[in-house]
C-alpha cells in the first residue's frame, strides 16, 4: 500500500444516483486486485475528517476505476471533483477475492452499489474462458441497475431484479440465486464438474441470506463486507466483523473486506 496523489481522468454521473471515477496511477494499475479498496481523502480541511473507503471497480493499464453512490457529505464532495484534479488516496487496501477457487460455475450476487467490486472480479475470472460466470444484480429501481451491459460484454449471463419490478424480476436477488442453484444442482453429480462458487457484495442482510443459501447447497461463498472505517489499514480496530474463531472479531479493512462465509458468525 501507498499514500499517493492520483490524477482524476474523469468523474461522471452514471444512472441517477451513481458516479464513475477513473484515477491514474501506474502503481495501482500494477497492484490493485478485485475486492480490494482505496481510502480517499475528501477534503483538505477537517470536515469531513476521515477518509472514505471505495472498492476497486475496475483495474486498467492506466490505473483504477471506482463506482460510487452519493449517500452523504463525503461522497458528495468526491462527486464534485473534476478531471485533472489530484486525489489523495491510500491503497490498495485489504485482501481481494480468491480467484483461484477454480470453479466451473461462478455466481456473482450484487446488492445495490455492491455491484462495484464485482465488475473487477468478473473481469479477473473471465480471463479463463472455460469459466461460466452468472451475475445476479439486485437494485432498488431501474435507474439503479449498473453495469449490465459491461457484464454481458464479458460473456456473463446476467439477471436483474428490482424492488419495484421496474426492470427485470420483481423481488429479492436471493430468490434468483435459489432458482439458479436449483437448476445447476444436477450438474454437480457429473464426474468432471469442478464446482460452483458464490461471490457476494451488498448490504449485510443480503450477505447473510446469500451465505445461508450457499451453505445449504454446500458450496463455497466469498462475501465482501462493509463497515464504517477510520484508519482503513488495521491500526484502529474500528471495523470489526464477528468470526467463529476464538479471537471473536476480525477487521474488515485488513483481514477482509472479503471473507469466506463459513468463517463469519452470522
Amino acid at each position, binding site marked *: *500500500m*501507498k*499514500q499517493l496523489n492520483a490524477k482524476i481522468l474523469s468523474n461522471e454521473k452514471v444512472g441517477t444516483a451513481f458516479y464513475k471515477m477513473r484515477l491514474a496511477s501506474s502503481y495501482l494499475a500494477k497492484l490493485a486486485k478485485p475486492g480490494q479498496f482505496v481510502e480517499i*481523502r475528501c477534503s483538505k480541511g*477537517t*470536515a*469531513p*475528517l*476521515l*477518509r472514505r473507503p471505495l472498492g476497486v471497480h475496475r483495474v486498467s493499464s492506466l490505473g483504477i476505476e471506482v463506482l460510487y453512490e452519493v449517500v452523504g457529505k463525503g461522497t458528495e464532495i468526491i462527486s464534485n471533483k473534476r478531471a485533472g484534479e489530484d486525489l489523495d488516496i*491510500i491503497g490498495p487496501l485489504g485482501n481481494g477475492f480468491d480467484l483461484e477457487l477454480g470453479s466451473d460455475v461462478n455466481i456473482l450476487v450484487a446488492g445495490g452499489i455492491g455491484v462495484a467490486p464485482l465488475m473487477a472480479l468478473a473481469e479477473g475470472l473471465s480471463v479463463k474462458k472455460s469459466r461460466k460466470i452468472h451475475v445476479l444484480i439486485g437494485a432498488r429501481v431501474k435507474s439503479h441497475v449498473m453495469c449490465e451491459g459491461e457484464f454481458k460484454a464479458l460473456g456473463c449471463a446476467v439477471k436483474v431484479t428490482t424492488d419495484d419490478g421496474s426492470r427485470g424480476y420483481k423481488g429479492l436477488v436471493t430468490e434468483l440465486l435459489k432458482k439458479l442453484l436449483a437448476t445447476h444442482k444436477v450438474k454437480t453429480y457429473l464426474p468432471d464438474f469442478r464446482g460452483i462458487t458464490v461471490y457476494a457484495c451488498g448490504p449485510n442482510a443480503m450477505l447473510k441470506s446469500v451465505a445461508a443459501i450457499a451453505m445449504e447447497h454446500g458450496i463455497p461463498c466469498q462475501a465482501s463486507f462493509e*463497515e*464504517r*472505517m*477510520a*484508519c*482503513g*489499514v*488495521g*491500526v*484502529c*480496530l*474500528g*471495523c*470489526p*466483523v*464477528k468470526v467463529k474463531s476464538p*479471537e*471473536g*472479531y476480525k477487521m474488515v479493512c*485488513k483481514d477482509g473486506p472479503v471473507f469466506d462465509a463459513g468463517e463469519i458468525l452470522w
Partner: protein
Amino acid sequence: MNMAVKIGRLKLKNPVMAASGTWGTDYLELSDAGKLGAVVLKTVTLESRTGNRSPRVCETASGMLNSIGLENKGIDDLIENKLPRLNGIRTCIIASIAGDDKREFKELAVRLSACKRVDAIEINLSCPNIKYGVNEGLIAHNEKAVYTTVKAVREATKLTLITKLSPNVTDIKVFACAAEAAGTDAIALTNTFIGMAVDINTGRPMLGNITGGLSGPAIKPMSLRAVWEATKAVDIPIIGIGGIMDYKDAIEFMLCGASAIQVGTANFVNPNSTVEIVEGIEAYLKRKNIGGIGKLIGAIKLG
C-alpha cells in the same frame, strides 16, 4: 536545531509521539516512525479482550467517536509477537497498560520492565469504554484510585512512567496532583471526551456501545485548556494530546506548557502527519529564531 526533550529519565529526540490506539506497524509502510520521538503502543491488558460490538467508529463535526473497548491480544502476545517486530525502528517505544485493579497494573509493569525494547510505560486510567468493577466507574474518575494505582506501578518499575488522565472530570488539577504525588514522571492529557451520536433515519445510536470517546480537532480547545490547568498545578512534564493535526496545533500545546505532544486521530487522516509535525516545528523554530525546543515550552505570553 535542538529538538530533544526529556520525560523523566527518558530522552526523546523530538517531542512528537504517536498516541496509543492510533499507531501500529501497518503504518510503517506509509510513514517513517524512526523520525519520531516515540510511539505509544495500543493499550495492553493481562488477558486478551475481544472489544465492543459494531459499529465502533463514527464521524462527527471535525472529529470522531470510537468505542473500540480496549480490544487487544493480551500481554503475552505483545511480548512474544509485537515487540520483536519493533526491533528495527529507531524510536522510543512506550507501552500503554490498563487493568481492573492495581494488582493487574503492577503485574503488567513488572513484565514490561523486563523487556529491553520498552523504554517507558504509559498508564491508561482513562479509557472511557471499560468499567472497572460494578460501582467504581473508571479509575481515572476517582483521585484516590488514581493515586493507589500509580503508586503500585511506581513501586513495580524503574522505567519512566507516564500517567494518562481522562478529561471527563470536574477539576483536572486534582487528578494531576494525585498522579504526581504517587510518583509518576509525567502526565499525558487528554484521553477522549465521552460523547454520543444518533442516526435519525434509524433512530439508533451511531455506536454499538451507545457512547464512545470523542477525538480529533473538535476536542483541541478543551484538551489545550486541560493541559494549561495541569501545568500550573504540577512540576512534572505534561504531554499534550487532543486534536493535533499539524505543527501549529502542536506548538499551541507547547506554548501552554506541554513538554511533548501525541498525535492520535490525525494518523488516520494523514498517516505521515507525525513526521510532518516534526519538520513543521523545526522550521517554525528556525523562522522565529528560537534557539531550541526548550524555549518554546510554556512560553505563552500573558498580560
